[in-house]
């Protein structure tokens, strides 16, 4: 089992494209969930879809979420708060670019990194 990765973008296409890049890098060995678009399918984010993506990527080792813009983060935080507390403690949102962050985070997860390592690796991208 490795840490799971969730990609949340305003655009379903960006979310799927980033997920494709993650899959190319780490295959199917890292649990992965992704979602994009508002409840009508337009640009935006949806708490319902984020909850489903977290469920899909669920790992007892933890789940790292990568988000693109403002509402994606707010909606992801809301989604996390709607989960039971023991699950909440195993989910982090990474402050990192969504595409590069997802690939870096997944690579770290694939290598056996802890949730803390995965978050730190993704966030190293933002430090530059």
């Amino acid at each position, binding site marked *: 089992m490795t840490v799971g990765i969730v990609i949340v973008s305003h655009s379903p296409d960006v979310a799927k494209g980033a997920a494709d890049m993650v899959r190319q890098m780490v295959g199917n060995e890292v649990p992965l969930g992704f979602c994009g678009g508002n*409840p*009508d399918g337009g640009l935006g*984010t949806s708490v*319902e879809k984020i909850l489903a993506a977290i469920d899909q990527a669920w790992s007892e080792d933890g789940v790292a979420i990568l988000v693109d*813009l403002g*509402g994606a983060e*707010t*909606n992801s*935080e*809301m989604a996390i708060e709607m989960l039971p507390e023991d699950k909440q403690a195993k989910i982090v949102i990474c402050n990192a670019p969504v595409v590069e962050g997802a690939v870096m985070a997944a690579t770290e997860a694939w290598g056996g990194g802890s949730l803390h390592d995965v978050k730190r690796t993704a966030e190293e991208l933002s430090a530059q």
Partner: protein
Amino acid sequence: MAPPLDLLLDTLAARIIAAADELTALDSAIGDADHGLNMKRGFEAVQAERAAILAKPLGEALKTIGMTLVMKVGGASGPLYGTLFMTLGKELPAEPSVADLARALGLAVEALKARGKADFDNKTMLDVLGPLAQHLAGSDASLASVRALAAERAKATVPMKAIKGRASFLGDRSIGHMDPGARSSQIMIEAVCDVLEGKA
């Protein structure tokens, strides 16, 4: 006397849905042009749950409105307005007084600050709702004074520079436009005042 919940809900939803184009236009100036559409989608979803919401006591009804907005809005305004309604639902008694409302709104404002990682003067809905909570806590908040305050505070966001949300990307260029969330908050406050005055 508390106004009937059905009239409050219908007026709130109708006003927000009618203002969709105006809110989206405000948001296109400084954001991602979706606030009106998102709020319309949210309140249409709330109205789809109308019968179930009206069957509940006030607190539960407000919580359901908030949860529906969280799930259906599709932008940051979903968790924000969702947090507002859910906190009011949690804190208000079945027959709230103005003092109850002031207290609950004050707590909702704190919850919104945490949710949006924002503060006053960041050019957000907080710039309308925060002063309103304080005003209601004062001794004689007339409906006319509430209306005037909401309008004045929404207008006060025009010269502010956005610090939070997509508008903050614009930096100084966000100055000169009213914040869409401040405006939607003002519209909701007006709707509640109209219901209380029998004008809705």
